[in-house]
């Protein structure tokens, strides 16, 4: 099974996520340069973290307008699973594949730390192996992860169950103390209406090895494997 990772100038988690895909689920990974005109035939697409185009103007704004993204949108519309992590999530919002926008963290500071997350939607190709309500711990590392959407959009997201991950405490309580960036309603990850496109601020690829402190990230990639296998 082949997963494409799209690389922009300034991407910097591309190598990390490639390794995670290979090691945890045995995927074949194709790295696709943003300047290529087309995304090769694949079973899933990943937009990695980093600072595409320096995150100049707005995070993900310039990357979202590169020619290759037209191809990504087409594939997403045809049902190919797409995951955006951190900068990838920002790009998906800029593209309009996901609603809302990721604003500057409320404390105005870059934040790099482990956070707890409550898994709320297990009907996506990236979260199928979790149990609803699972509390996991993986790192965040971002300056602009403060999820914002207008109230009606938020209500729609909640109503349709499109919130995938929320910042929580260790016991799963959704508290403001557990929120590292001020995101509305503690939202850490969301998906499209059909569940095929997922964006999340935390970095699952950084939590796939015990020596790095944690393996809770593995299930995102294993989920994808199972979703593609059935």
């Amino acid at each position, binding site marked *: 099974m082949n997963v494409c990772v799209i690389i922009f100038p300034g991407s910097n988690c591309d190598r990390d996520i490639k390794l995670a895909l290979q090691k945890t689920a045995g995927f074949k990974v194709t790295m696709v340069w943003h300047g290529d005109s087309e995304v090769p035939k694949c079973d899933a697409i990943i937009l990695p973290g980093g600072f595409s185009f320096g995150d100049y103007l707005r995070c993900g704004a310039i990357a979202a307008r590169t020619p290759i993204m037209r191809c990504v949108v087409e594939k997403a519309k045809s049902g190919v699973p797409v995951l955006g992590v951190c900068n990838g999530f920002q790009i998906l919002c800029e593209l309009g594949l996901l609603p809302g926008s990721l604003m500057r963290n409320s404390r105005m500071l870059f934040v790099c730390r482990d956070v707890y997350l409550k898994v709320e939607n297990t009907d996506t190709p990236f979260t199928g192996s979790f149990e609803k309500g699972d509390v996991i711990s993986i790192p965040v590392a971002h300056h602009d992860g403060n999820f*914002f*959407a207008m109230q009606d959009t938020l209500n729609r997201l909640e109503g349709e169950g499109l919130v995938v991950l929320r910042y929580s405490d260790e016991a799963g309580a959704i508290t403001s103390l557990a929120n590292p960036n001020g995101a509305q309603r503690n939202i850490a990850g969301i998906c499209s209406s059909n569940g095929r496109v997922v964006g999340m601020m935390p970095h699952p690829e950084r939590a796939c090895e015990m020596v790095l402190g944690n393996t809770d990230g593995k299930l995102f990639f294993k989920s994808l494997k199972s979703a593609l296998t059935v």
Partner: protein
Amino acid sequence: MRAQIKISLKKDVLDPQGRAIKKALHQLGFSEISEVRQGKYFEVDIDDSLELMASKVVERMCQQLLANPVVETYSYELVD
């Protein structure tokens, strides 16, 4: 010709930067401030030959790249 473009956050959008600056201004003793909103400002030099087309071009630039329609609005002026 130069376009001076101002991008502001929409009214209902939370503005963490503006809020932080307001707080800092209060701390500095500027108690007369009731609200601060932060936006972006661009100066874009445009080919003079565009003339009347210029404002169309600026509009399109704002819509396609400079502003994020989900949370931002824009306005601009053309100067020589």
